[in-house]
């Protein structure tokens, strides 16, 4: 004979991710590695910014480069002779805590005190997935259009630092970087917003200071 039974599961996949993220953060804390998520739209300048920070910041830096095909961005970081792990996200549109957990374990954490985790270029999907980092930096650029910020409120609401990049070409693409900065402030009054150009170097000093203030 058979019977019909109701089985409670109550397994929240988002909560499961958060738990792994918390475990990741404990591991990073123990190793003394301050970790920065680098999120943003496709091609907004995430890799370029991390490359500059590697050269200008006085820290032992490591990078996890998540990308659809990881070889590209990871290859750009490797030439700086620092610990780099490329994560192939393949079909995935975001990193999750489980995926980076393995990367954290594979990195020589003892040799690192500042770790950047470049997420897949996407302003939507990564929002749901904490990785365990200490700080969230969102990089958007004027070429995405100056309504990008207001169209993606969730990612800006959770950000600790917003970088509005490529202001050197704002005029050429007809985008108002001031509006983008105001929108970010509107969504997240406490967030620090920095306008930058990685071509002219404008704003880079401020970005470095903001990260260093956070590390304190």
């Amino acid at each position: 004979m058979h019977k019909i039974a109701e089985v409670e599961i109550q397994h929240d996949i988002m909560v499961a991710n958060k738990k792994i993220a918390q475990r990741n953060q404990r591991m990073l804390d123990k190793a003394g590695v301050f970790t920065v998520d680098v999120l943003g739209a496709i091609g907004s300048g995430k890799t370029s910014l991390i490359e500059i920070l590697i050269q200008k910041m006085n820290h032992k830096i490591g990078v996890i480069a998540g990308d659809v095909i990881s070889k590209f961005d990871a290859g750009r970081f490797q030439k700086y002779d620092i610990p780099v792990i490329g994560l192939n996200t393949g079909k995935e549109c975001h990193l999750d805590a489980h995926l980076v957990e393995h990367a954290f374990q594979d990195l020589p954490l003892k040799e690192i005190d500042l770790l950047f985790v470049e997420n897949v270029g996407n302003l939507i999907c990564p929002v749901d997935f904490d990785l365990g980092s200490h700080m969230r930096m969102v990089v958007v650029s004027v070429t995405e259009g100056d309504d990008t910020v207001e169209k993606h409120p969730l990612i800006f609401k959770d950000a600790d630092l917003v970088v509005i990049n490529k202001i050197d070409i704002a005029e050429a693409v007809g985008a108002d970087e001031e509006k983008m900065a105001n929108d970010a402030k509107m969504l997240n009054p406490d967030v620090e917003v920095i306008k930058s150009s990685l071509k002219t170097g404008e704003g880079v000093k401020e970005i470095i200071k903001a990260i260093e203030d956070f590390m304190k």
Partner: protein
Amino acid sequence: MHELSMADAIVKTVLDAAEKNQAEEILEVTIEIGKLTMLNPEQLRFLLEVLTEDTLLEGADIIIEEIPVKIKCNNCDYTGSTNLDDSDHYLMIVKCPECDERNLEVITGQECNVKNIRIEKPE
């Protein structure tokens, strides 16, 4: 978006629970999806149906319950939903409907919860 990886995680969770409970058939599964997640319920349902082919879950009724967004205001302590319509649902996390404060916490709306299953098992 990331419905595929979510659907995959849901199927694993369900099959795992079914096995632990000696299920011979799964009749029904109930999943709660928060309105603030980047998940589209219809797309999720389609992927669940595809992924469950040839598993114990094939043919089960998939019930998706959408969880509305609830916020708490850190200024005036307002707790509850907001009066914005569906098309603007992201905006409701931006401002408190009572006092316009922007410092809010999201209480519900971020779930992707496998709630329960109904199974057939030996007596």
